[in-house]
């Protein structure tokens, strides 16, 4: 990823979308981005913004149940959510190594669950709920 992206504090889902949009200009092919934050911290909302920035005009939904969503955007984006599946072998069988080795952009919600599998050279972003509508979003 190119350096220079500034996180920030947002006070609505729209603002989080815009912040995600601003990040997309810094993202490069092959990047692995992890999003840490509690339930409803805004991870999926932030991903919507990133895809918006890649001019993706179809719906972006949470991969909590599908585990992996693939979006054919300006760059191919792989959106993973590890919340529901903590069996590392199942992720391996799913072929995440091929995703990690590819030029696709990988964005991972709940990365702490499969941290043992994630390559070390990833970009780690944290989303913290400050109040009902405020979120602090920053690179670790």
């Amino acid at each position, binding site marked *: 990823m190119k350096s220079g992206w500034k996180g920030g504090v947002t006070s609505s889902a729209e603002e989080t979308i815009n912040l995600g949009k601003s990040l997309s200009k810094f993202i490069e092919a*092959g990047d692995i981005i992890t999003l840490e934050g509690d339930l409803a911290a805004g991870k999926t909302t932030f991903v919507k913004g990133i895809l918006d920035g890649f001019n993706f005009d179809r719906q972006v939904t949470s991969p909590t149940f599908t585990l992996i969503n693939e979006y054919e955007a300006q760059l191919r984006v792989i959106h993973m959510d590890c919340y529901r599946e903590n069996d590392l072998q199942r992720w391996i069988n799913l072929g995440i190594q091929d995703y990690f080795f590819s030029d696709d952009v990988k964005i991972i919600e709940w990365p702490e669950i499969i941290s043992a599998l994630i390559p070390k050279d990833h970009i780690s972003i944290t989303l913290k709920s400050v109040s009902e509508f405020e979120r602090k979003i920053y690179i670790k």
Partner: protein
Amino acid sequence: MKNILAIETATNICSISLFLDGSFVETKDSDEPRSHAVKLPVFTDELLKAHKCKVSELDAIAISSGPGSYTGLRIGMSLAKGLALSYNLPLLSVKTLLAMDMEIDIEFPHWVCIHSHKNMVFAQKFNNHEPVNDATCIPVENLDAAPVFGTELQKCNIDFNEILPSSQTIGRFALNNAAALAEKDYQKVSPFYLTEFNISK
């Protein structure tokens, strides 16, 4: 062994060949990325039907065992085992780099490589069609000055001669070495991943 199906799915190329009476008949292939799961069963069906051949008339299934793409290898291996199991046919598992080397006719040491990721390549050195070392996954800078043959290496900024993996080569190698390769204990046949995950912690 005379009638075999040969499968090659270690890279972006999805390819299947039919051999009847020991001779090559036809290949079906595609290099569309990530299409193996969709294309391979269809190719198999079309190929067998086109030549009025039933799975029960085959003597063995040859499979390119890797190294290569994790998902590609698993898709190829699943189909190979599924077909083999249905009529208790032996599997002929062929190392991908070894088969690619069959296509190279030079009489001095050279590398055969498949791009893995970033600057990493699956690599093995051969001389006169004999491996000089074991297949490894190494940074491309670690290759010595011997000429490089292989596929998907454009990203690595090195001079190389293109050699594509093909099910035809897999089939030919399998036919020539059928007695040594034939395996009916399917548990013993698995993809040769080479870059298996090390689950840390």
